[in-house]
């Protein structure tokens, strides 16, 4: 589903590469944690997946498509296949929950009739049916992140990309958010989560790709946040 082949990326003006010869393959339906310190290259990976950046060397293949070869017009349509969630939610404060989710569908030119059906379904899936008329400012952080998740999943994308989705949430709300990501994963969505949240990674025990200074230093299934933690537990 997502394949990085010897990807190297250096930003303009930077002395060192943000990613160096990074290779991994994430099959359809996988759930992957992308971990590493700040500056390790997690965000560059997400930006390359979204085609906000293009690799200098190597290739990024998403769903069989080499994203560097996508035209600008095709990039827009390609992005509809990827739902994205951010730490800061990126909700429109003057729109209601319903309108925020519907916005993603309206701007991708989904017919009105479909929006009427799709938004309530997705709001029900994230448990926000009763908040449809609330504005983001009236919601808790966890609820806002659920709205962002609903918006990301509104177009029913095969890939969900979450960049620090629990960064602004307390442990209990973080766990709820991760349960939702698992729920979407069980429904067949490939989920990639870039995170620093050790507790969450340790409690979920999913595949972990660890980056350090732009290189993949670990790619393990059912892993803990740190290799040492796994070894300490005899794994």
């Amino acid at each position, binding site marked *: 589903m997502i394949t990085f082949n010897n990807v190297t990326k250096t930003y303009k003006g930077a002395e060192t590469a943000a990613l160096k010869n990074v290779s991994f393959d994430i099959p359809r339906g996988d759930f992957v944690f992308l971990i590493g310190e700040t500056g390790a290259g997690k965000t560059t990976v997400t930006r390359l997946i*979204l085609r906000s950046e293009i690799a200098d060397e190597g290739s990024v293949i998403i769903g069989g498509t080499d994203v560097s070869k996508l035209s*600008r*017009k095709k990039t*827009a*349509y*390609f*992005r*509809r*296949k990827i739902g*994205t969630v951010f730490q800061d939610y*990126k909700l*429109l404060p003057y729109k*209601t929950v*319903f*309108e925020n989710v*519907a*916005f*993603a569908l*309206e*701007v*991708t*030119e*989904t*017919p*009105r009739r479909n*929006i*009427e059906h799709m*938004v*309530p379904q997705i709001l029900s899936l994230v448990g926000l*049916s009763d908040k*449809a*008329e609330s504005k983001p400012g009236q919601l808790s952080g966890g609820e806002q992140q659920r709205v962002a998740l609903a*918006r*990301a999943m*509104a*177009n029913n994308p095969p890939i969900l990309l979450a960049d620090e989705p629990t960064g602004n949430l307390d442990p209990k709300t973080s766990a709820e958010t991760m349960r939702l990501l698992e729920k979407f994963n069980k429904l067949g969505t490939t989920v990639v989560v870039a995170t620093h949240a050790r507790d969450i990674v340790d409690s979920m025990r999913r595949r972990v790709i660890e980056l350090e200074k732009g290189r993949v230093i670990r790619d393990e299934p059912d892993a803990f946040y740190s290799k040492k933690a796994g070894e300490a537990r005899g794994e």
Partner: protein
Amino acid sequence: MNPMRSIQKRQVKRGVNNKTLYFVKQGFLNIVSHKIMSAASICIVAAALALIGLFTAVGININELMQRIGSSYEINVYLNSENERSISDIEGELKRIPGVKSISFYSREDRLEKVSREVYGDDGYVFKDGENPLRDSFIITVNNLTESDDISKAAENIDGVDEVIRSKDIIGGIDTATRAVRNIGIWIMAVLVILAVFIVYNTIRLGMSSFENEIGIMRIVGASETFIIGPFVVQGFALGVTGAALADILILIGYKIAESNISALISGSITELAGIGMIAAVLTPILMATGGLIGIIGSLAAALKDK
């Protein structure tokens, strides 16, 4: 009815699914949300286009004046007395000169008779002993006064033509005035159009910065570039056309006042200004098209800057 169902119906109606309607609605929302900047844009576009309109109106009047003079303007082509070519050959060549409206032949006998009648009446004769020093001639009228110079030169080069005489001073004066108005006008108009495009550009950039979040989300969820920039192009177009309409109204009101004042001061068909109907018919489409173009260019430049 399920309360969720009623909410969704109401809220989806608030959103717009028709692309064109969405562009128009968002475009006008952008204008309303930046009233002052939009008003400034409209005023600058209007000022630029009003000057363009003024130059156009002056141009139309000069053209009209040229045509009025041109209708009574004649080029006299005198033939060589020893000319051996047939009159019809020379006439054919003269007719083929571009810009010639009509051509009439006057034989030396006709001209002598005419001159004599003008001087002495029916019974007189100007020259002694049946002498006729006059030459055969053609009188040419022209389609456009500005072409008279080229027509005269072409006529002079025809074999059998002795001399070409025309009222050079009038033409020279009008031509110089026309060229001066056109040259100054082109430069001033170019500067004003660039200024107007720049103002529209800035207004759109300001609008885009306040819709930064929306644009960011639109890009993330996969909205097409057309869908993202469409409303801004509508906004630019609306600013340009509104400015043009304002300029058109101002120029036409001003022209109407000028027309009545000038006709009260000076009478005579030569000094009469072109009718307001004619000015409106020429000016309105020019201003609207220029205004719309200024808006579209300004907004496209702004919207595509970060692409």
